[in-house]
Structures are given as structure tokens and as C-alpha cells.
């Protein structure tokens, strides 16, 4: 070999002089515009909601948030969010309390316990539950679930656990807060369980083997390794589920029955922020009622933002404490 042949191509071409490449430029523009559009959209919506709520805020102030009244009669109009906040809190929190163990159990079954042949079909069935339009679930709630709960479940709960104020006399018709809770449970179950399932699948096989190699049982392994590893992600999944329950309007409107009062009994009717907005917006009698409904929407929006931010905060905090995130291997 002669020395001329050994001179590499690169030595003959300058490496300096960065050129702007058209493709890179285009990508930057398109991606930047998309990101900007999303941000601007959020800000626009927030601004519009605040704007729409302003007359109601001016008239009722912060007192609106706790006041339990909704009187649209012209001349005597008084509005308040108290009962809807209560309805939102009780339906979404109890739905979450019911859905959490179900979803985690479901995810655990699908990742660790189920026979392999069952895993894929059952997983897609659970995910299908998430694909059912909420208005369809609501219809089913009206015609099937509501009557069953009213005839069988509510009397049973009342007679056995009636000493707890939550389980008052059964509702006279199908719709009730209880029906809404069960419907919401069904709606958040697939979201929480599919996120949790992904988290469990993300637990490195090495960690599970490390636990099993000590002579621990599968359950001990799950409790000692899988749960702690997925903890932050599960918390975030639950908050996302809560956000979904809080914001769900249609299905809740269909089964909750409506009403402006705070009853401790789950078997009475009620309203949530979202269901009140959905059911009353069309028929708002006055401008002030319309502004008050937008005020409800503002409360809902603030809550959703808080839920989202706290979900992110939890994930980050847990990731920092453990030195791993749900999506990072953490070996090295």
C-alpha cells in the first residue's frame, strides 16, 4: 500500500463551515409551530373561561365556591358551586377508591398471574372498555345498571350498613350519586389499569428474578419489588383517573339525577360541576346564570390543572427518591 492511498477522504475535505440544511430547518419550524399552537390553545381557553366567568365572579366573589344554592328565577338569582363541588368530590373520590384496587388487581393479573394465553385477549377486552363512548355507558347506566343498583344493591347496603350515613334509604328511581359512582368507576378502571399494566411490564426482569432467587413467593416479590418500583407511576395514574372522573360530564349527567343539595346518602340524587354545566348550559335562563356556569367551568379547569401538575410532581418526586423513574432502567 502506498502512503497516498492511506490519506483518508476526510483529510482532504474541510470540516468547518456549518451549512443550514433545509430538512432540519423545516423540521424545526413545523415542530415549533405545533408546540406553540398547543400552548396558545391552552392559554386561549383559559382566558376565554376567565372572561366568561368574570361577571359572575364580580357578583358573587369567592363566596360562590361554597354557597349551596342555584336559583335562576329572574330577579332573585343566586348561584353557588357548593353542592356541585360536593357532588364532584364524593363521586370522583369514591369512584377512585373503588377503581384503584380493581385496576391494580387487574394489571397484576394480566402481567404476573394470568396464564399466558389469556393475557392478550383479556388485555384488549379491558382496553375496549375505555373505547366505549361515555354516552353509551350512560345509557347502559340508565337502563341496566341504575335499576339493578336501585332494586338489589342499594337495599342490601342500606339494611347491612345503614348505620353509616352514606348508605341512606334506597333511591326511589334509578338515578343517584351511587349510580354515578359505579359508572365513573367503570370509566376510570381501564385507564388506570392500562397505565398500571404498562408500569408493571416495565419492571425489569432482573429485579423480579433477583427477588425470586432469594426464595420469595410471587406475592412477596410483587409487594417487595414490583409495587415499590411502580409506586410513583401508580400514584400518577390514579390522579389521571381522578381527573377523568372529575371532568366526565355526559355519563354522569345521564345517571346522577340532578339537584342542588348536599345529602350524605349516596342513594340520593345530585350533580357534579361537569354534569351541572352539561345539563344546564343549553337552558340557561339569564346571562348571569350562563356566567355562573362558566364560573363552574373555571373551578373545574383549575382543579384539572392542579391534578395534572400534582401527578407530574409526584412522579418526579418518587423518581428522585428512588433514583429511578418508571421508564428508566437504573442500572449502571
Amino acid at each position, binding site marked *: 500500500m502506498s502512503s497516498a492511498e492511506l490519506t483518508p477522504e476526510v483529510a482532504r475535505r474541510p470540516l468547518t463551515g456549518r451549512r443550514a440544511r433545509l430538512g432540519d430547518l423545516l423540521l424545526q419550524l413545523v415542530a415549533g409551530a405545533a408546540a406553540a399552537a398547543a400552548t396558545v390553545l391552552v392559554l386561549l381557553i383559559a382566558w376565554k373561561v376567565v372572561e366568561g366567568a368574570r361577571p359572575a365572579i364580580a357578583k358573587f366573589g369567592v363566596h360562590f365556591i361554597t354557597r349551596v344554592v342555584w336559583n335562576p328565577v329572574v330577579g332573585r338569582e343566586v348561584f353557588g358551586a357548593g353542592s356541585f363541588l360536593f357532588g364532584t368530590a364524593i363521586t370522583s373520590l369514591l369512584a377512585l377508591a373503588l377503581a384503584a384496587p380493581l385496576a391494580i388487581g387487574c394489571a397484576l393479573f394480566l402481567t404476573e398471574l394470568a396464564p399466558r394465553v389469556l393475557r392478550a385477549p383479556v388485555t384488549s377486552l379491558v382496553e375496549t372498555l375505555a373505547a366505549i363512548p361515555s354516552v353509551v355507558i350512560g345509557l347502559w347506566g340508565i337502563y341496566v345498571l341504575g335499576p339493578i343498583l336501585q332494586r338489589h344493591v342499594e337495599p342490601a347496603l342500606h339494611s347491612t350498613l345503614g348505620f353509616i350515613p352514606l348508605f341512606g334509604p334506597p333511591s326511589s328511581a334509578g338515578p343517584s350519586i351511587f349510580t354515578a359512582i359505579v359508572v365513573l368507576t367503570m370509566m376510570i378502571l381501564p385507564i388506570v389499569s392500562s397505565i398500571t399494566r404498562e408500569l408493571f411490564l416495565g419492571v*425489569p426482569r*432482573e429485579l423480579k428474578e433477583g*427477588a*425470586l*432467587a*432469594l*426464595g420469595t413467593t410471587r406475592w412477596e416479590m410483587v409487594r417487595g419489588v414490583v409495587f415499590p*418500583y411502580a409506586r410513583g407511576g401508580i400514584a400518577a395514574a390514579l390522579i389521571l383517573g381522578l381527573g377523568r372522573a372529575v371532568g366526565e360530564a355526559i355519563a354522569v349527567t345521564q345517571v346522577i339525577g340532578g339537584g342542588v343539595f348536599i345529602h350524605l346518602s349516596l342513594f340520593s340524587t345530585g350533580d357534579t360541576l361537569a354534569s351541572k354545566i352539561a345539563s344546564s348550559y343549553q337552558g340557561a335562563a339569564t346571562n348571569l346564570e350562563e356566567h355562573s356556569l362558566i364560573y363552574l367551568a373555571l373551578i373545574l379547569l383549575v382543579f384539572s390543572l392542579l391534578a395534572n401538575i400534582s401527578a407530574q410532581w409526584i412522579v418526579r418526586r418518587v423518581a428522585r427518591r428512588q*433514583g429511578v423513574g418508571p421508564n428508566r432502567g437504573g442500572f449502571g
Partner: protein
Amino acid sequence: MSITIQPAVRVETKRQPLPPRERLERIFNIDGVDALYGGKPAIKDVTMDVYKNLVTAIIGPSGCGKSTFIRCLNRMNDLIPGFTLTGTIRYHGQDITGNDVDPVAVRRHIGMVFQRPNPFPKSIYDNVAWGLKVLGMKDGLADRVERALTQAALWDEVKDRLKASALSLSGGQQQRLCIARAIAVEPDVVLMDEPASALDPIATAAIEQLMTDLKGEYTFVIVTHNMQQAARVADMTAFFSISRGDEGERYGELVEYDATQKMFTAPSDTRTEDYVTGRFG
């Protein structure tokens, strides 16, 4: 171009000669073991005994079924779908391959250290203490943790930061933590699946030293693709190689199993000789 042939490894000469084979206590009798993934054999017809309080090395080229074999010894392959095993593996005389055998009980006595350090995302202390707590060995927990970390030659490095995350340790420290975790629960046998393959030479030396120090208390079986390592730490060495079946399918088989000294200086099989002299592999 010619290649000069010279032994690739030197076996340490200062080691104690092994007592005669029949005076050694057998911990595993492995007889005619075939291991199959989805019906395809990964290893065929492995027959060998593993002796108590010795370090037994499994060497051989990639794909010869070393890891598959060692994972048979504590039923770790149960976790792999489609895995089947025929033949018998007797552990202290009891066959551990049957369907009625509880793998949890088997693993309780036969611990394992893996190729990649796999500490739990917990504190250093909890990594060792967790197994002890779960298995009900809670008396003198802190002492047990300290003893295991000392045995794993890690105590001095971590005693001031036991509450720190195990993931803050270096790779070599993590692997010694995994060894501490495995020996804390007082196993009978410790299986090591290429425990030093991801580590630097200093960390590797530390792990080899602790095996030598601890073999009076435990029995070690170590898979390694590093012949020097086998020569340094193992009393007995088994050489696995890849064979071809009638239809061209590849599977691993045990070629030769003998005292390490003999395996590296006077192997009986030419394939072993080719491998340990570096002509193949």
C-alpha cells in the same frame, strides 16, 4: 501467517490440591439433563456432580448453554415460557426437577447472583434486609445485614451510608451488594451467572477474592466466559461446547469436567484443549 500456540491461561500453582473425588460430599447429582426452549434443545445430556464447599466453574463459548444450565439448578427457568427439562437434578439426594417440587423452597437454599447487578430500588440496608424480613429471619436483623455486607467485602465502603439508595453505588459495589443480599439469607449454594462480566478488573478481583474466602461456608457454581477467571477461582471446571445435531440444529453439551488444574494443563478432550489454549472460542 503462522500462529504460535501457547497456553492462554496460567493456573495458580499455590492452590491446595483437591482431595480425592470420592471423599468429597456431593451437593448436586445431575443426570442426563436436557433443557429445551419451546421444544428446541439448548443443552443435551448433561451429567455431572457438584461438590460441597468447592467453587465449580462452567466455561464455554457463547451460546453453549452455560446460563441455561446454571438456571436449571434453582428452577429459575420456570419463569421462561416454553421451557422444559428432562433428566434428573438431585440436590442432597432429592430430585428438584419435578412438577411437585416447590421452586420457592428450592431457591430458598440455592441463591443466585446475576450477570448484571440488579439491586432493588431501595436503600443499601434494605436491599440486604428485605430478603431477611420476608423470609422471617428478623432476629438480629442489623447484625445479619452487617455480617452479609462484611462477607461480601462491602461493609467498609457503605457503613456510613446504609440509608443511601443502592443505585448510587458503582457497578462493582452493586454486584457485591447483590452477593451480600444472596448470602444474607444463608443459602447452601450460591449460583453466579457471569457475575463479573460487566465489571472492571478491580471489582472483578474483589468478587473472586470473596468467593475464595467464603467457599468454606457456601458452595459456589460460577458461569464465566473468562477462562482466566475460572483458572483463578475454581476448584472444578466444566467445559461446555456447541454441538450440531443430525439436522444441523445447535445445542450445548458438557465436553469435559475435571479438576481445574487438570482442565487447564492436561485436558483429555481435544476440544477442551483447543478452547483453553485459545485456538477456539
